[in-house]
C-alpha cells in the first residue's frame, strides 16, 4: 500500500484520535469516573497506527494491557470503547471486561489482554488459521519489551517460524516493564536481534516515526501474505505516562522523559505533513477539533448508557 497524502492524513487522524482518547481517559480516571486500572498508550501512537495502516478488517491483531491504541488503530469504535471503560452495557464487552479486555472480533481484534505475553501464542494461532484456510490474511501481535521475556515469546516465534505462519510480531520497546529498565531485564539492546534465533527477519525502527513503522510493517505484511512466514519488528518508543494511571514513576529519570517528549510522534508527523504541503496548520487544527468532538460525544454516550443488571453476571460463560 502506497503512502499517499490521503493515507498519511488518515494516519495522522488516527494518532490524534488515540492521543485524545487517552488524555480524556486520564482525566476521567483522575476524576474517579473510571473503575479498575487504565494503562495508557500516549506517546506510542505511531506504532499501532503505522502497523495497522497495512491491515484490513479481515486481518487479526492481539493486543495488551496497554491496548486502547491498538484497538483504535484497527478501527475500534471509540464510543463503544469509552462505554466499556465506564462499565456500561453498551460497551464492547457489556461492562464485563473493562479497559484490559476490550475486543471486537468482527474487526479481527482478538482482545486486549491482562496477561503479559498471552497474545503471542494467540496471534500465532490466528496466523495458523489464516494459513490453514488460505485466506491470505495475517495476524499481528503487539507486545512490550517486558513481554519479550516470557516463555510464550520464544515458543510462539519458534512455532510461527517452522510453519512459516503469516504472523508479524511487533515489539513495542518503551524501555520499561513497569519499573524495570530494559537493560536490567534483558541482555540485548535490540529485541530484533532475537529474530536470528528463529531464522526470521528482525528489524529495529524508530517507533516514534510513523512512516518508518509503516514501511517496516508493509514489508513484513507483504512477506507474510506471500507465504514467506513471520517477522519481528522492534519499535523503539516511550510511554509518556506512568505504567498505569496513578503510577508515581519514581523509576523514570526526568531528563530521559524530557528527551523523549521532544520526540513525540504527533508533532513530528505534523511537521512532515506541513513540509510536504499535505496540510496547513489550520487543516491540522481542524482535524484535532473534529477528533475532540468525537471523543466528547463518546463520553456523553458512555455516561448516558445504562449500567448492567446484576443478573448479567451469569450470562456468557458458555456458548449455547
Amino acid at each position, binding site marked *: 500500500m502506497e503512502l499517499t497524502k490521503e493515507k498519511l492524513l488518515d494516519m495522522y487522524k488516527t494518532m490524534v484520535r488515540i492521543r485524545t482518547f487517552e488524555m480524556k481517559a486520564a482525566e476521567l480516571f483522575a476524576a474517579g469516573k473510571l473503575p479498575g486500572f487504565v494503562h495508557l498508550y500516549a506517546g506510542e501512537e505511531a506504532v499501532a497506527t503505522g502497523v495497522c495502516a497495512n491491515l484490513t478488517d479481515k486481518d487479526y491483531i492481539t493486543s495488551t494491557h496497554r491496548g486502547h491504541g491498538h484497538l483504535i488503530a484497527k478501527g475500534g469504535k471509540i464510543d463503544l470503547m469509552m462505554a466499556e471503560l465506564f462499565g456500561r452495557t453498551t460497551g464492547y464487552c457489556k461492562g464485563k471486561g473493562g479497559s484490559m479486555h476490550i475486543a471486537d472480533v468482527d474487526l479481527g481484534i482478538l482482545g486486549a489482554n491482562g*496477561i503479559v505475553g498471552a497474545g503471542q501464542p494467540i496471534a500465532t494461532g490466528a496466523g495458523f488459521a489464516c494459513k490453514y484456510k488460505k485466506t491470505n490474511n495475517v495476524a499481528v501481535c503487539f507486545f512490550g519489551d517486558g513481554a519479550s521475556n516470557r516463555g510464550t515469546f520464544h515458543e510462539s516465534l519458534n512455532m510461527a517460524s517452522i510453519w512459516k505462519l503469516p504472523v508479524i510480531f511487533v515489539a513495542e520497546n518503551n524501555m520499561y516493564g513497569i519499573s524495570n529498565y530494559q537493560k536490567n531485564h534483558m541482555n540485548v539492546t535490540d529485541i530484533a536481534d532475537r529474530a536470528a534465533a528463529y531464522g526470521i527477519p528482525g528489524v529495529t525502527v524508530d517507533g516514534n516515526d510513523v512512516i518508518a513503522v509503516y514501511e517496516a510493517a508493509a514489508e513484513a505484511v507483504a512477506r507474510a501474505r506471500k507465504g514467506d512466514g513471520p517477522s519481528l519488528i522492534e519499535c523503539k518508543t516511550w510511554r509518556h505516562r506512568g505504567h498505569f494511571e496513578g503510577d508515581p514513576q519514581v523509576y523514570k529519570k526526568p531528563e530521559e522523559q524530557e528527551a523523549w517528549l521532544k520526540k513525540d510522534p504527533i508533532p513530528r508527523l505534523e511537521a512532515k505533513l506541513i513540509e510536504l504541503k499535505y496540510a496547513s496548520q489550520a487543516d491540522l487544527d481542524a482535524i484535532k477539533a473534529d477528533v475532540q468532538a468525537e471523543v466528547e460525544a463518546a463520553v456523553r454516550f458512555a455516561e448516558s448508557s445504562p449500567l448492567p443488571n*446484576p443478573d448479567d453476571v451469569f450470562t456468557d460463560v458458555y456458548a449455547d
Partner: protein
Amino acid sequence: MAQMTYAEAIRDGMRVEMKRDPNVYIYGEDVGIFGGCFGVTAGLYQEFGPERVIDTPISETAIVGSAVGAAAAGLRPIAEVMFVDFMGVCMDELLNQAAKMRYMFGGKARLPMVVRTPCGAGMSAAAQHSQSLEAWFTHIPGLKVVMPGEPADAKGLMIAAIRDDNPVIYIEHKQLLNMAGEVPEGEYVVPLGKADIKREGSDVTIVAWSWMLQKALAAAEELAKEGISAEVLDPRTLVPLDKEAILKSVGKTGRLVIVHEAVRTSGFGGEIAAIVAEEGFDLLDAPIKRVTAPDTPIPFSPVLENAYLPSEEKIIKAVKELF
C-alpha cells in the same frame, strides 16, 4: 505490640527472617525500588540491597522454577508472583517440580521456598486480576497453602512459612493490605495448621478465611443483634488443615456455614463440608451451607462485581436459613 497494616505485617515478617537468616532473599517483578505492585516490599531494597531484593524479568516460569532450584541448593527464596491469576504461568514449576521433588527423591530434598501472591476481587480488576485460586494448590500434595485474614496472622504465618522446609503458597488478599491491627513485635510465629476462633459463639459455626473472615465477622456482629450467636473460625492455613478445630466448633454449635470468595464448584468449601459430613455427621443439626462466588469469571463493572462477591448480607441470609 505495634499498630501495623496487613501489608506492613507481611513485610515485617519477611524483614525479621531476612535479618535472622542470610539465606532468605526476595525476588519477583518490581519488588525492588518500586516496592512491589502493591507496595508490600517497600523499603526492603533500601534495607537489604540489590543482592537480596531482586527485580526479575517478566518470567514467572523462571521465577518460580528457579526458586525450586535455589531452595534445593540451600537457599530460602521468597518469590513474589504479582497476582495469583498469573500462577497459571508457573504451574508446572509448582505442580510437577516443587510439590513432588521431595517425595520422588525418596525424601532426600528439602524445598524451603515461599511463593507470595495476592488474590481477590473488589477493585474492578476484572477476570484476569481478581481470582481466588487457593483450591488449585490444595489439590497438589506437597504444597502448603496459607491465607491470612488479618494483620497479626499475616506476620506470624509469614515467619512460619519462611521457616518451613516445604514449598508454601502464601496468598495475601488485596482488600486486606491496608487493614490495620495490633501485631506482636519480633519473632512472632503462628504455626501452620492451627485454626483460630476469631469470635466465640454457640448457635452456628462460620468457617471463613482471607477477606471473607472480615465479612463473616461483620455478619456475626449483625446476627448477634438478632439473637443468633455465631462462632467464626479461621483455618488460616488450608494445607495443613486444622480439622479437629472445625469439628470441635461444629460439635458445640451443631450448624456449619462455610464462606469463600472462590467459585463454588471444586472450591475448598466442598472439602470442608465433606470432612464434616464424613467425620462429624452426628454433630450436625442442619444441612451444611456454603456462601461462595458463582461459577463464572469475575466481571469488571462494579455493579456486576458486587453481585458476584459473597457479602455480609449473603452470609446472614445463609445462616438464617438454618434456623
